[in-house]
């Protein structure tokens, strides 16, 4: 579905992505993990076309990304923190994105019901709480029935009910054959949702594979400890 080869992104002398290779497989939930500044967000932004990269290629369904934007029709994105124009209402923001996508005949607003957003959508967004804005952001990501979803810490800021609604939705979409890429700092969530994990370290893929495999190769039970072991093993390998 997405093939990334030799991706390099430099910010000045800093190589945030350092020759990264990765395949993201169709119909799976892949969690991208890594310590702060390991390049997770930059990687997602490169795929979304928000950030330009210097070397390497990204192909989406066999077609190289070349700066055109049509492939983004198939993508839904939920950013870490959602901010909208203050004086628009939720309903207007939804309408705006529909307009920008050429008013598709069928849109998927199941999450509006699941989150019981109804009346909240008629208030200006600057009067809404962060959690409610996050819910609107989730609605927007799932709105156009995208084949691929990028969710950047999707449950951060959601209450437990909304959080479990969203997780249910993620699992439903996986069952429907969607490709879902998410980042999270909550390990239990990743264990619950992710089929595959990709572990980034210093702009390269340190580990990519099924989440069960991480545990079996490290001999650790929980994902958090397994990943911690990969990291400490790495620092042991490099002589100080």
């Amino acid at each position, binding site marked *: 579905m997405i093939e990334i080869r030799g991706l390099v992104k430099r910010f000045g002398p800093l190589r945030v992505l350092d020759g990264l290779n990765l395949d993201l497989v169709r119909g799976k939930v892949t969690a991208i993990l890594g310590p702060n500044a390991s390049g997770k967000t930059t990687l997602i932004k490169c795929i979304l076309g928000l950030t330009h990269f210097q070397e390497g290629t990204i192909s989406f369904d066999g077609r190289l990304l070349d700066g055109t934007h049509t*492939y983004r029709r198939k*993508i839904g994105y939920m950013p870490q923190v959602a901010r*909208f124009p*203050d004086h*628009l209402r939720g309903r207007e923001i939804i309408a705006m994105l529909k307009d*920008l996508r050429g008013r598709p005949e069928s849109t998927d607003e199941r999450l509006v019901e699941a989150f019981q957003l109804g009346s909240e959508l008629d208030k200006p967004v600057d009067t809404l709480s962060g959690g409610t804005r996050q819910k609107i952001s989730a609605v927007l990501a799932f709105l156009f029935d995208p084949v691929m979803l990028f969710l950047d810490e999707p449950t951060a800021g959601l209450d437990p009910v909304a959080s479990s609604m969203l997780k249910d939705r993620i699992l439903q979409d996986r069952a429907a054959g969607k490709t879902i890429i998410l980042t999270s700092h909550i390990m239990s969530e990743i264990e619950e949702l992710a089929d595959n994990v990709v572990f980034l370290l210093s702009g390269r893929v340190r580990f990519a594979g099924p989440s069960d495999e991480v545990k079996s190769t490290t001999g650790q039970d929980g994902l958090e400890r397994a990943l911690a072991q990969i990291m400490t093993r790495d620092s042991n390998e490099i002589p100080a």
Partner: protein
Amino acid sequence: MTATRKIIVYELRDIVRSRWILFYALFFLVITEGLFRFGGGSANALVSLSSLALVIVPLISIVFGAMYLYDARSFTELLLTQPVGRVALFKGLYIGLALPIAMSFLLGIGIPLVFRGILATAHLETALVLAVSGTLLTFIFVALAFLVAVTVEQKVRGLSVSILLWLLLTVLYDGLVLALAAFFADYPLERPMLVLMLLNPVDLARVLLLLTFDLSALMGYTGAVFEQFFGTLAGKAISIAGLMSWIVIPLVAGIRRFKKKDF
């Protein structure tokens, strides 16, 4: 409808509901009405209003322009993940912001002018030139604001740069030109002065207004030179052309930067 137009529609709706755009219109409404009531005659009132507009319109346009783009950053990111091109998005954001600021200014000065029947008098032309200059200055300074906002990463620094730019173009520039004139007083300075005036959008707008007021004598040295050199009509045409290029050049530079920008 193109993506640009769709973005303009929703951005307009957002901005007309914001409080500052209302205050901006009210400010000009109160000032205009006040000047006509107490300013000692319509001609005087229009001159005072013009001098004020030459300072305030650039300030509000550049500060709110930059602030808006910084605040809209994460929404801009979200829009960029939609199937929308960057150029279309930038144009939409720009027009969607410059348009309501210009409309707010036009309503602010327009309502008192219409109610006082100024537009039916000999001052019609002056009022129209004031409206055109204010609109052009709005589009110029919003374009400059966007250029600053896509170039300078940090909001606080970007706002400082915007204010400095405004200070430079509205206040400091004339001081520098004057200092230069005093320093080189023994040399023929007409041509260099003309060039210097063409390089500053606020001066261009001032020339345009003063040529209409037929007050170029009051503008002192450079104004008189300008009228002498170009004549009233050509002078106006050149001013407008200069103002137009002050919209296009920062805008093109801004679009180029926006296309390359990493979010």
